[in-house]
């Protein structure tokens, strides 16, 4: 436990989901290779956990997914830098995102935030909020307090 209000680790992930999602089409649309993508029905491997042995090692995807993460592209515990990197990757794709949303695709930005303090302070500047608002992307912080554990499938 420490008393720092900044995270020990943070990264941003753009998430796109739809039952009929075709990963290659989205990759072409966004002109960037995703960190991870799959079609509905694909087998997705999940890292084994000694502690939680009841978690299956692989599952059938119940929807299609396309994820772009800043995890391996931005080396910083400043969440703003991760979100800015994401906004840079998506610059000029506001209309594409809007069309996807209109077609029923779920699109959002999750900021993973791991802190071993009991008090932590995710923040956003007006400029960054306007960039995300113009891209029509909702944002949420996935905050882990006290017991920082990166359990995501983004290895």
């Amino acid at each position: 436990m420490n008393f720092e209000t900044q995270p020990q680790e943070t990264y941003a992930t753009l998430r796109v989901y739809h039952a009929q999602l075709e990963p290659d089409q989205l990759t072409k649309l966004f002109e960037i290779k995703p960190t991870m993508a799959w079609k509905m029905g694909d087998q997705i491997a999940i890292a084994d956990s000694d502690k939680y042995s009841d978690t299956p090692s692989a599952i059938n995807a119940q929807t299609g997914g396309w994820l772009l993460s800043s995890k391996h592209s931005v080396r910083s515990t400043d969440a703003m830098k991760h979100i800015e990197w994401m906004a840079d990757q998506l610059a000029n794709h506001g209309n594409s995102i809007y069309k996807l949303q209109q077609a029923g695709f779920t699109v959002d930005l999750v900021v993973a935030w791991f802190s071993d303090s009991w008090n932590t302070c995710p923040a956003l500047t007006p400029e960054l909020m306007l960039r995300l608002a113009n891209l029509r992307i909702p944002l949420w912080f996935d905050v882990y307090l006290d017991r920082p554990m990166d359990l995501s499938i983004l290895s």
Partner: protein
Amino acid sequence: MSDCIIRANKGLYLGFKIEVRRKNRNHSSMQQSEELLEDRTLERATGPERVRATFRIYHPDLEPEKLTELLEITPSIAWRSGEDGYGWRKRPGFKAPSGGWLLSSRTVMRGNNATAHIDWLLDQLAGKANMIKELQNRGFMIDVVVGWHATSWNTTPALSPDLMRRLGKLNLPIWFDVYLFGSEEEEIS
């Protein structure tokens, strides 16, 4: 509960809930009940137990009455620099290092929907963008802080594009002051 959250976390990135079957256990109505309970536990776990939004202005030369007149809003609390027993706590012997003017949803809004608290705050500030900008240019520190008290170690503050646009147009930075419930709280918001 941690077991449940781990499933949710992986499912979170996959976009759907991972079906988990414990080893050496048959499907039964009891198991279905446990899964339902876990779902409900998760819903409770990631939301706040207590939330409030506060618009804050600070400056060493801040005069509360002038700001109240300028913004045409009555603050929840305000004080001058050097005032004794300032802020929410009003602790005697503690002198204010700076002037402060706070408008908070804490005494107005009920419920733990953070978006509703922030919306209420921005409704009060509608049409004040130029005044806020002018104060910022004069060196006043202005922001919105959302006090967020969680009962579990995983919690998920969120902002919609509309809310971010409103905050952005008012040139207001926002931050979530996230506390693990039961921890000591500095009453800054």
